[in-house]
C-alpha cells in the first residue's frame, strides 16, 4: 500500500465498520477513489469492502465543474437547502491535499460559512499561509479553522469543527452529498426551512 493512496491505517482506528461520514473523517484521501454510489473501505487491505455510500436524506446538489475551479478562489453556494444558515464555501486549495478532499490532488473541499461558535460569518476569510489553508479569524471572536483537517479549530472558541460538506466527483461535476457536523443555528441539518 503506497502512502500516496492510503494515508491512514484502518487498524489504527480499530474500526472496520464505518458509516459514510465517519469514513470520510477518518480516511481523508481515499475518498477520491470512490465512485458516486459505492466506496471502498480500506482498499488493499484484508478489510477491504464495498459499502453503500449514499447518505440518507441529504440532497445531491450540483456545485461546479472541477475544471472551472481556480486555485484558491472560493465559490459560494447554499447547502443543504436555501434556508437560513446554509451558506457554504467550495474551494480548490491549490494542490494542497486535505481530509475529505476530492479531485486528483484531493484539494477540493467545501465547508459551512457559519462559525460554529455563535454563527459568525466567515465569508472572505479564506487564507493561504504556506502549506496551510484556513478560514478565519471570525469577525466576532477570532476563531480560525483548518480546512486541511476537516475544519478542526486551529485556535478559537467554537465547540466543534466547521461542518464539512461531503463532495463527490462524477466526471468533471462536483456534487454536494451530505454534511459532517451540525450547522450553526439548526437542531438538525435537514429542517423544513
Amino acid at each position, binding site marked *: 500500500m503506497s502512502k500516496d493512496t492510503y494515508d491512514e491505517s484502518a487498524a489504527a482506528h480499530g474500526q472496520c465498520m464505518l458509516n459514510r461520514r465517519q469514513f470520510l473523517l477518518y480516511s481523508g484521501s481515499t475518498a477520491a477513489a470512490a465512485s458516486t454510489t459505492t466506496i471502498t473501505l480500506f482498499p488493499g487491505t484484508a478489510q477491504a469492502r464495498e459499502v453503500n455510500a449514499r447518505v440518507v436524506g441529504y440532497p445531491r446538489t450540483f456545485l461546479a465543474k472541477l475544471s472551472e475551479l481556480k486555485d484558491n478562489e472560493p465559490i459560494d453556494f447554499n447547502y443543504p437547502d436555501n434556508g437560513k444558515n446554509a451558506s457554504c464555501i467550495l474551494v480548490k486549495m491549490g494542490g494542497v491535499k486535505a481530509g475529505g478532499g476530492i479531485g486528483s490532488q484531493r484539494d477540493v473541499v467545501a465547508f459551512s460559512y457559519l462559525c460554529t461558535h455563535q454563527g459568525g460569518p466567515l465569508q472572505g476569510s479564506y487564507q493561504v499561509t504556506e502549506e496551510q489553508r484556513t478560514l478565519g*479569524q471570525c469577525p*466576532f*471572536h477570532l476563531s480560525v479553522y483548518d480546512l486541511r483537517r476537516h475544519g478542526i479549530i486551529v485556535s478559537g*472558541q467554537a465547540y466543534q469543527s466547521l461542518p464539512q460538506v461531503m463532495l463527490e466527483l462524477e466526471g468533471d461535476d462536483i456534487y454536494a452529498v451530505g454534511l459532517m457536523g451540525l450547522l450553526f443555528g439548526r*437542531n438538525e441539518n435537514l*429542517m423544513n426551512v
Partner: protein
Amino acid sequence: MATNYYLPEDKVPLPPKHADVLTTCCDYCIVACAYKVYRWPIGSGDGGVKASENAFGIDFPSSPLQDWVAPAQHNVVMHKDIPHNVIITPNKDATTVNTNGDSSIRGGIIAQKCYNPKTPTRDRLTSPMMRIYGTLQPVPWDFALDVAAEVAKHVIAKHGANAYSVKTYSYQYIENTYAISKFALRHVNTASFTFHDTPSDVTSTPGFRDAGFDNFGPSYDDWGSADVLMCLGTDPYETKTILFTQHIMKGVQKGMKLIMVNPRETAGITYAKKMGGLHLDVYPGSDTVLLGAIARIVVENGWEDKEWIEKWVNNKWESDSGFGQGTRNTPWQWRTTWGKFQTKGFKDYKKWLLSQPEYELAQASEITGVDAEKIQKAAEWIAKPKADGSRVNTSFGIEKGFYWSNNTGNTNAISSLATICGAGGRPGRVVGRFGGHQRGGQRGGKLPRNKSPEKVPGRRRRALDTDRWLVSGHTRMAHVIGTTWIQAMSGSQGLQKRFQELVVTNPHQVRSHDKQEIIETLKRRADSGGMVVIDQDIYLRNPIGAQFADIVFPAATWGEEDFMRANGERRLRLYQKFYDAPGDAKPDWWIIAQLAQRMGFDGFDWKNSNDVAEESSRFSRKGRKAFHMVKVYAHQNGRTLHEQMRLLGADGIQGPTFINDKGELKGAKRLHDTTMTAEQAADLYGENGPGEANIVTKKLTHFNTQTGQINLQKHPWSLFSDFWTWLKPKEDELWLSNGRINEIWQSGFDDVERRPYITQRWPENFVEIHPEDAKARGIESGDYVMMYSERVAAHKDTLLGVQNDHFQFDELMKRGHIELSKAAVTAVAIVTPHVKKGVLYSNMLDTRQPSNALTARVVDHISGNYNYKMGVAKIAKLGASKYKEEFRSMSFAPRNIA
C-alpha cells in the same frame, strides 16, 4: 460517545418548555461566565423548533449570537436517580462578565464535564479505595476514613504536625477551601501546607503586595476602558477569553491600543497587531529588563505622572511610617531587609533607575531580544503626554508567563512602571492580575509560619517549602487534594523519584484484610522514614493517585453540590447543584469533616454546604471578596446565604459587600478606588460611614500599605541575573517556556483527556518551534521530538540562610545545595513562526509528557515561588508521528493568522 474519537453529530435535542432552568457559572477559568442548565427527564418530550415549543423561546434555525445548542452542549445525567437530559449553554441574560451570553471553547462545552458512564467521564472516582496487596480496591467510607484518621493521629503525635503535609487546590469553591484550611491550619496546625501552584504558602505576586496593589482590584469594565493596555505574560484571548472578547476587544474597537509582552504571537496578539497594537517579543525571564528600559525612557523624558506621584507615592518618611512595631511586621519590610528594594520616593527611584546599566536601551534590547525601536515606542504610548498636555489612560495586566519568570523582579518592576504612569486606582487606569483559575479560596486558619524550620537571611522565617521538605524525608503523611502535585511542580521527575522511594519501595505495604493490621502497617511505614499518601480527587491521576496513593477519597464537584466562588473582578455567584454526584463521591468539605471528627477535632459537624459557607463568611470580612454582608442580608430577610446567592443569579455581586443605610445589599466595583465620591461611598455603606456589621478596609479607596499610598520600589536585575545567565541557552540549547493553550486552559484538570473534540485537537503534548530553529535541527511539523536537558537545577536542602546572599543562586550553587539532574520529555513538533526564534513552547501540564520536568526546581529566593516558565532544552527529532500524514487530529496551522 463510546470512544475518544470525535464523531461530529448532526442533530441535538432542544430543551422543552417544561425543562427546569438553573443558573450556574463555568467551572474553569478566572472569568466565570454565566451559564444556564436546562434539565428535563428523558422521555418527557423534547422542545420543538418554534418559539412556543422550546425553553429558549426563539425560532430555529436561530440567528448568529442567539441561543443555539451544539451537540457537545447536551448530556444525560442522573437527577434524583432518574435519567435527565441536560443542555448547558451560556446565559444570554448575563449583563456582566459574559455579556450577551458569550463563551469560550472550554466553558462552551462544559456539559461534557458531567459524569455519564457512556462518555470518557466513565472513570470518575465513585467509591473510596485503599491499596491492598498493591491494588486500589473499593472500600466503604467508614473503613477508609477510620484508617486515614488513625494513621494521621499517629503521625502527628509521633512526628509532629509538620510531618502531616497538606497539598491542596486553592480555588475549588469557598466551602471546600474553608473546610480544608480550617482542618490543616487551625486544627492539625501544620506548617507543611501549600496550594497546587506553589511549593510554599506565599504570595504569588510579591511586587504587587509590597507596592500595595491587590491582585484583583480592577473591574472588567476597567480593562476595556484604557487608552493603552499593556498585557504581560499572557494572551488574554487564549487564557481568559471572555475578558478579552467582551471587554478588551470592545475597548480596542473603540480605539484602545494593546501592547502585548509575550514570546509568542497567538490569536489575541495577532488581533492586537492588526488593530494597530504592539507586540514586544521578550525572551523568557527578561521582562524586568524590558520594563526597566521603558521606565528609564519615561523618566528621562519627564513623562511620569507627576500629580499622581506627588499624591500617591510614599516618600521616605511615609514608607517608614506605621503604628506599634512599624512596618517591620509587614512582608514588605522583611523582604527589604537588605535595602535592595526600598526607595525614598520618586527622586530616589529615578536616581537608582538611571544608574542601572542593563536598563539602558541598547543593552536592554540585547538582553530581551526586543527591537530598541519597539521599546521606545512602548514608552511613548504608555506615558508621553498628549499635545495638549493631558495624559493617556494606561492600564497594566499581568499573568503567569510574567510573574512565574523572575517572580519578585518582574512584579516589582511592573508595580513601579504602572505607578509612574499614573495607573493604579482610577477607572481605566488600573493595574492587576488578569487571573488564572477562579477565586474560591477562603481561609479557615492561619499558616503557622513560626513552625517552619526555614529561614531566609534577616530575621524572618520563610513559609515551609513542601517539596524540599518532602525530598528531605520529613513528610510522613501527604494529604493531596485535587492536584497532581508532582507534574504541577518544577523539576518534577526528581520529585517523582522521591515519592517512589518514600512510598512504593518502603517495605511496609498493606497485605492484610484486617483494619487494625492495615493501620499498623501504615504507621510502621511512616515510622520507618517512609510516607503514607491520601489522595482526594475526582479522577485517579497518575502517578499521585494511581501509583502512590494508599487511600483514595472520591470527590463530588461542580454541578454536584451547591458552591460559591468569585471571579477575577471579585464577582461572587452560586454554582448550583443540578445532578447527582457519581456513586459515593462526596464534596471535599464533607470528606474533611468526616476525617476531622474522627481525629477528635470539634467544629466539623456541618449538615450541608450552606452551613460551611455561613460559618466561613466572617473570615472573609477583610478580604477582597468579603461576602459576610450577603449572609447578614440573607438572614435579615429570612434566607440562607446560598438562597440569597441563588437570587442574585447570573450577575451575582462583587465583593467586598456592604449593606447601606437604606438596607440595600451592595458590592464594590473596584478596589483602590481613589476617585470614589462621598455619594458613591454613601451608596455603598451609608451616609454616616460604615455601620452595623459593615467592615470597610483601607483597600477600598487606598492602597494596601501603612499609609494607604504606594511604595515605589526598585527592581534590580542583579538579584536574578546570576540564575538567568546560568540558565540561558548554551550551545544548541533553546529556551523552553511552557504554559497552556486556549483550547485547554484551566480545564485540563478533568477534561483535556475526556472531551473527544479537545482530545482530537490536542491528542498529546506539543512543542512549538520557530522555523529557523527547526530547520537547523531537521525537524518538521508532525515529527516526534525529544526535549531534554542535562542541567535541570534542583535546590535540594531545607536550610537556614544567615548571610545576605545565602539564597542567591550563585551562592547556593557554590555551597553545593543545587543538584543538576536530567529530564526528558517527548512531544509532537509544530513548526511555526508564531513562537520567537530561540524559544520553544510546550504544554505545561500534559500528565503523560510533563514539560515542567525541564524547569528548574529552584524557587525565587525572595518570594519562594517557582519560576515555572523558564527552562532550557535541547531538542532532537525521534521520527515522524502519525499526525504528520493523517487529517483527523491536531493542526499545524500557525496561531497568528489574522
